[in-house]
């Protein structure tokens, strides 16, 4: 399963993407400003609420499984020492909290991705950042969201092709090499085909963007986002 937009009528689906982007930015800032267990507990509640309001659940987090080993191993690596006492708990705890913050930001991002069509994200970015930089950023966001799921599917297909011909018995290193080589080849081919498809459909840097409008539900969301951002700034200054 690849994390992507899921049509729906949840509260998050009804929000303007600009509101959701502000909440994300505010949340990320707050997560890096409030590093105490108490602060992270509050942010955990908020992150779960964001995902829930987008109609998501634990299943959406499974798409981040590739990041979990890194987030889990990081505290162990940080705490390890080459000599006595061999392991420093305080260092591991600090890194562990940092890993946890990353996880929380991923949860909020999952809520955004599943509730926001790609073209709405592009429109939000282009309206927030005027001119050619905005067009460039908006197009980049749109292409990343369109290309990554395809790329992931190609890698899975390559892995299945290796397995289907007995490759599952090969050493891990060899399997990784086969999937990587096939995956890179497919990625280049996929990029070519995506480029051709965009050309055939008259891809434009400045297309007609979808209508965006703030509704009643956006004002509380904007307040939450601005509040998080302000709290983060205040904490940093203090």
């Amino acid at each position: 399963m690849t994390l992507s937009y899921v049509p729906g009528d949840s509260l998050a689906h009804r929000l303007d993407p600009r509101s959701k982007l502000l909440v994300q930015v505010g949340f990320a800032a707050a997560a890096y400003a409030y590093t105490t267990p108490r602060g992270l507990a509050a942010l955990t509640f908020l992150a779960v609420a964001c995902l829930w309001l987008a109609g998501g659940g634990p299943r959406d987090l499974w798409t981040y499984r590739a990041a979990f080993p890194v987030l889990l191993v990081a505290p162990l690596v940080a705490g390890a020492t080459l000599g006595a006492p061999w392991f420093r708990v305080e260092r591991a705890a600090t890194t562990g909290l940092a890993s946890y913050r990353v996880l929380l930001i991923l949860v909020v991002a999952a809520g955004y991705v599943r509730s926001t069509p790609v073209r709405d994200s592009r429109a939000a970015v282009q309206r927030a950042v005027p001119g050619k930089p905005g067009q460039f950023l908006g197009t980049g966001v749109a292409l990343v969201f369109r290309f990554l799921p395809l790329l992931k599917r190609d890698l899975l297909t390559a892995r299945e092709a290796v397995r289907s011909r007995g490759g599952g018995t090969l050493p891990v290193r060899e399997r990784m090499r086969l999937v990587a080589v096939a995956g890179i080849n497919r990625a280049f081919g996929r990029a070519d085909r995506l480029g051709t498809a965009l050309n055939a459909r008259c891809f434009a840097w400045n297309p007609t963007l979808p209508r965006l409008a703030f509704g009643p539900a956006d004002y509380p969301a904007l307040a939450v986002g601005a509040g998080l951002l302000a709290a983060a700034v205040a904490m940093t200054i203090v």
Partner: protein
Amino acid sequence: MIDATGVTCRYGRSGSGGSDADDGGGLVAVDDVTLSVPDGEFLIVAGANGSGKTTLVRTFNGLVEPDAGTVSVNGAPVSDDLVAARTAVGMVFQDPRDQLVAATVGADVAFGPENLGCSHAEIDRRVADALAAVNMAGREDERIASLSGGERERVAIAGALAMEPDHLVLDEPFTGLDEPARRSVLDRLRALRAAGTSVIVVTHDLRDVLGLADRVVGLSAGRVAVDAAPREAAEKLPGLDVRVPAAFDDRPADAPAAGETDDP
């Protein structure tokens, strides 16, 4: 009207020196093809794998630039205005997954009109009309990933129709489709033909579409080997490793398909 004059396309111009390499270097995919497609015509471009069919039709909207010769659409050279050419000649790829770029049906069909800078009302109208034309009205919010192969093909056709092209090119539209999906796409092609849309179908298997065609162009090794009405073409095409109906009877275009055979 699409006019291709002396079109030649080569691949791998560095050249491997194979038997197919000509003096210009590289493999010749399309070799000095001259072809006109009038408005409203239902044309089949037939040929075996590697005969140059796809390369030729991709020159019609500038996705492939000819190494020699010219292609013009509605009197204007394609290279002069690629957006105009791509608006006039809609393209449906062989694998719809290569063509669909959005997560939902409505967003994907709207992608082309958005790029053309249409107003929101115009985009909404085009999306509704295009989806109705492929019998998928009201399914704008469905996820592309949840569609069947036939439905994806129809969404790909809708995406091209939303550009409101003068000509619609479909590259192997029946590949990978089961029988109900084939019938569904055929029904859409019949409807397009009845509506007067110019349709160009690229295929190596004419069993489904020969009865719809006004003309058939057969390619072999990049050259035009057959350019004839369906009845005459049906007699000549088997020599090009192309499947044709066992009995071609000039049946009406909107009639269901007659007996077919796998024999070339």
